[in-house]
């Protein structure tokens, strides 16, 4: 096969090492030859340099204002390692003296002084060592608690990306996005928390509205970025808690509280209550538990754990300080879909009778909360 591919991520297509598409026939020694050739060419062209770590470090931190943004867990592990290195306080440091005729005398004097001082210093150092050991142990325990907590929060691999992209489950056509957008005043920039694959942001873009998303799953962020949508990679709750009080005007959230643990819903609604400005609007588009068939459709997405009743959601927002609340049922089963369901159900020998209204109740609701 003569067709060749170059990974889309390659920065300079013309410079990329060309990998035959037919990988079955790939020859590692030939690939290594090409790597060596390219390395030689780049060295000759002065494209990259190999520097000692100390030189690299100095060049990066020159000026003193170099900052490294780290994940808090990684920072904790890093500082704990440093603390561990300095925790051992001892009087047995190396003793030296200048070279010269009197050097050895100074060396002997220093050693004698240390010999006499050691019992007194060790008494002090012992307490310091014990304290340091306890501090390091506490830091280790703290890191372990965080890791354990994170591990327990893991959904066993069943997250939104897996459900939507890998298993192909979840809704492809989400009703109510246009209606949700309309509740925000024209000209206002809308923030969508947990923006996922960016369906709401796409709708906003279609309607020439300004909007950006906040999403923690880097794979979903990449999907949005490929679509040209503006998305910030961050944990939405961390991001929200990092905003100033009364600073947000328009926030949209979809499937709020339906996936994470219930406490995340409480934290998020609480944080929205303090970060939204007076008169600011939060719109929540969720699955409606009243619609029996809507519920069945909702739970086709295995990352959904529960549905939140609109009255429960309204009560939570009211408690968080939102004064004007409005719940609108959204989305209708069109005629084709109704017929499809009716056929499936009557096929099972069921007489729908007066149950139609419950079965085909709107599958979504939109909660509009004004502070």
């Amino acid at each position, binding site marked *: 096969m003569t067709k060749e591919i170059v990974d889309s991520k390659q920065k300079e297509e013309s410079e990329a090492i060309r*990998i035959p598409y037919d990988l079955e026939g790939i020859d590692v020694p030939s690939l290594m030859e090409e*790597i060596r050739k390219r390395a030689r060419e780049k060295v000759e062209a002065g494209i990259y340099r190999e*520097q000692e770590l100390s030189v*690299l470090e100095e060049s990066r931190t020159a000026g003193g204002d170099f900052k*490294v943004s780290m*994940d808090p867990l990684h920072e904790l592990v890093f500082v704990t390692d440093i603390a561990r290195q300095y925790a051992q306080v001892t009087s047995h440091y190396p003793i030296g003296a200048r070279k010269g005729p009197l050097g050895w005398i100074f060396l002997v004097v220093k050693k004698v002084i240390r010999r006499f001082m050691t019992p007194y210093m060790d008494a002090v150092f012992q307490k310091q060592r014990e304290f340091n050991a306890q501090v390091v142990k506490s830091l280790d325990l703290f890191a372990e608690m965080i890791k354990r907590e994170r591990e327990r929060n893991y959904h066993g691999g069943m997250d939104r990306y897996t459900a939507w992209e890998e298993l192909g489950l979840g809704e492809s056509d989400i009703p109510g996005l246009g209606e949700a957008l309309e509740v925000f005043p024209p000209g206002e920039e809308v923030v969508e928390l947990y923006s996922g694959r960016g369906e709401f942001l796409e709708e906003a873009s279609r309607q020439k509205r300004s909007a950006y998303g906040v999403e923690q799953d880097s794979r979903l962020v990449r999907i949005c970025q490929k679509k040209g949508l503006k998305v910030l990679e961050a944990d939405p709750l961390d991001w929200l808690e990092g905003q100033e009080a009364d600073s947000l005007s328009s926030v949209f959230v979809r499937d709020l509280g339906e996936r994470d643990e219930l406490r995340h819903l409480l934290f998020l609604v609480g944080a929205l209550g303090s970060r939204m400005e007076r008169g600011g609007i939060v719109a929540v588009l969720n699955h409606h538990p009243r619609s029996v068939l809507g519920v069945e459709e909702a739970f086709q997405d295995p990352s959904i754990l529960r549905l939140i009743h609109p009255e429960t959601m309204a009560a939570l927002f009211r408690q968080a300080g939102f004064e004007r609340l409005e719940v609108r049922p959204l989305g209708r089963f069109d005629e084709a879909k109704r017929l499809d369901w009716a056929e499936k159900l009557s096929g099972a020998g069921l007489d729908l009778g007066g149950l139609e209204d419950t079965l085909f109740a709107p599958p979504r609701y939109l909660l509009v909360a004004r502070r």
Partner: protein
Amino acid sequence: MRPDTIAFVPPRYGLGLVGGAEAHTRMLAEELHRRGWAVEILTTCGVDAHSWSDTGDFRPGLEVINGITVRRFLQTGRKYTRKVYRIERRILAGKKVSLRAQEYWIYNVVSCPDLCRYMAENRDRYRAFVFIPYLFGTTYAGIKTVPERSYIIPCLHDEPYAYLEAFRRMMHSVRGIMFNTPPEEELARRIYGPDLRGKVVGGVAVTPYHADGERFRHKFSISGDIVLYAGRREIFKNTPLLIKYFCNYLENGGREAKLVLIGAGSVEIPFSFRSHIIDLGVLSERDKRDAFAAASVVCNPSVNESLSLVLMEAWMQEVPCLVHGDCAVTRYQVERSGGGLWFEDYPTFHEALETLLGNRHLRREMGRRGRVYVESHYNWDRIVQAFEEVLLEGEAAV
């Protein structure tokens, strides 16, 4: 009646210990035990591969680990004096060192007279004593004590210690040598002569295992491409070289990726690169396996390998490997399997890593080839058969 117990004699042994020879001994001993062989471990109370002190959790006496009897002995008579240090410096500098000085040095690199006494007194209870690896007082003194029943898994590297006369004599005095790979056997025959007894046994097999890379990413909060280093972090294993090359790779416009280090030992991470180099220390077996599954590339920069279990574990997760071209063994494995690339200096490291990280399809294909290679060359039936052949040849030669 011939005794049938096989005694493995490593310098240290235990569940949580990090190290290739330690893992090798445990995996091989447990597999033989599963197949009904009578197996015992004779070892010291040492825990740490640097200090070798007996002050850890291991106590002298009997212990059973995963069904295998472990006899531990205290290390006595070992002195790491200035004389030992001076001799070691001379060896590493390639200077001439007398046989007496060589022995003085070896006896002070983990020495356990009680263990030797036990072997001398109980030699008739064991069919064979299998020593692993070559470079320790337990191996050298043990082989001198029971040469007629000694076998060795040398885990030999091309390093100054290997060229000592003491080890040449030791290699010729054993009943059989069990090599891990053909390059290791080649090296041994080149250094000690072609008339060595023994053959390639193949080390150990890595059975397929389930792992969840996303769980690892979630637990340790790591996103994006991961270049994984697994094993002891030390100069001997070229960890500082990997850190230096990786920092230069980022500085010279390399792809956004994280270097994740797992294993024992300490390593210095430059302050300004600490968001890209994550040191997680020693992990549980589950976390370690998940780390392999999460990795885009596994890098083993060591030039002192006789097998490299890390490559096997990576390939079982279909992850390609990047190794040092100066290591005959890892390069042989990579070349033969097609499961990765190698580097000779910084420029080739940069280009090789860039090629792997930039080509998902290539990574997948190389990972797949690696897995096929491990499954076809490293299976327990072949290894145990070769192990037994070396024992039988040794016994026939008595």
